[in-house]
């Protein structure tokens, strides 16, 4: 005789599959392509923010190499974003202009912690962001290259002090600065092969206005932020 309970395990499976499917997690690209999350996604709360180790893959060696130049070659955002892109790929080391130093004053509009553990810091050259006027750049306060590092950790602590020393954050969620903070930042120009056409930044601040970079130039890693 046929057991009427035979289909039961399969029926039980269905609610669990549906429950999991309704919990969309942020993309698994380690935050290097598109770091912005959207409504409905689930994101992880993380702590130990000064100590997080870099988890990205794209140009990983270049991203965790600080430039050693001491005299800045570039002193404005546009001096960096106007550079000619180098011929680089996913595995390229720092090259050409990427070995120079940039130092400039700017205003902090928003920041984010993607899954690669770099802080993405969106800064511009006007005291408040004005679409079509402000020149933007994404400067990345890198995750540490390893757990013995003290240099990258010091820069992370500099940045955390500027934003009120939070001890936890939600991955991928931009925080908007209602009153942009004036900062002075130094670092190496870096061509992000994941964002050649720009697009770093957010549409979740200032009522949803697009606040995104125009090309792949960043400072990465940041050497100091004050």
């Amino acid at each position, binding site marked *: 005789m046929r057991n009427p309970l035979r289909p039961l395990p399969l029926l039980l499976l269905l609610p669990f599959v549906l429950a999991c499917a309704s919990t969309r997690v942020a993309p698994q690209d380690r935050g290097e392509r598109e770091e912005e999350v*959207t409504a409905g996604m689930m994101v992880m*709360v993380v702590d130990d923010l000064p100590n997080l180790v870099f988890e990205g893959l794209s140009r990983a060696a270049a991203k965790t190499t600080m430039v050693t130049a001491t005299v800045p070659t570039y002193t404005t955002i546009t001096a960096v974003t106007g550079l000619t892109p180098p011929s680089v790929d996913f595995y390229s080391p720092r090259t050409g202009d990427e070995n120079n130093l940039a130092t400039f004053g700017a205003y902090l509009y928003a920041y984010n912690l993607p899954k690669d553990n770099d802080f993405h810091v969106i800064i511009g050259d006007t005291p408040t962001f004005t679409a079509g006027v402000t020149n933007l750049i994404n400067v990345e306060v890198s995750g540490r290259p390893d757990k013995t590092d003290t240099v990258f950790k010091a820069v992370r602590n500099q940045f955390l002090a500027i934003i*009120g020393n*939070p001890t936890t954050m939600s991955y991928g969620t*931009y925080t908007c600065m209602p009153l942009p903070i004036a900062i002075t930042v130094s670092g190496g120009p870096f061509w992000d092969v994941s964002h050649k056409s720009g697009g770093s930044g957010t549409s*979740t601040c200032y009522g949803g206005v697009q606040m995104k970079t125009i090309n792949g130039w960043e400072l990465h890693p940041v050497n100091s932020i004050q």
Partner: protein
Amino acid sequence: MRNSLRPLTLLLLPFVLAACASTRPASRDGGEREEEVTPGQMVMVVGDLPNLIFLGQSRRDAKLAMVAAGVPNYTSITAVTSLAPPPGLGYYSPRTGVENNYARFTAYLYAYNLPADNDFHVILGDTPVFTPNVTKLINIEVSGRPDGADVVFKAVRNQFLAKIGNPVAMAHGTYTCMAVPIALTVGGGPFWDVSHPNGGSGTSSCYGGTPVKTSNGWELHPVTSVQ
């Protein structure tokens, strides 16, 4: 003939359960008891922030009853937090006694949060920067809307959102720290939170982990204006 694949469906079940268990959601208390999330938790990113509806249960009717703005009865944080708690309040009590008075004061915004009940928890103090044992704190709550037709609560939510840079998305339960506290003038009704009679609203995730937490159950709730 016995189907050899029959045990397979049961074997799959532990994997599905494990996958679900690895995604720990924030607590399901509606955000009314403990709104602060902890590392490792998964939290939901939400949009449509001006329009979110109140999802709490504790003293629901009282939380959704605005007091009339007029000449304020209380003009400082301590004038509110030193009131005698109303006697006999329970989970279902309406506004009562001093809860029907009006408070209005200027203070500094240190941190804010959007718990799962959709009220914004706004932690204010009476000094330009938070100083432990010196600053007097209060949690004021910019309430979720009572329903989808409301325009009054939505206007207050928009006032608050304008103060914090008009974000259009937030992660539930994660406090945002104000590196440079903003001066606000707020109005609202004093409210005794039966879920927090000993205080504890606020956060230990700002300013290097210093607890920025209230000392008793007095709040402004709902807030009637943020300027």
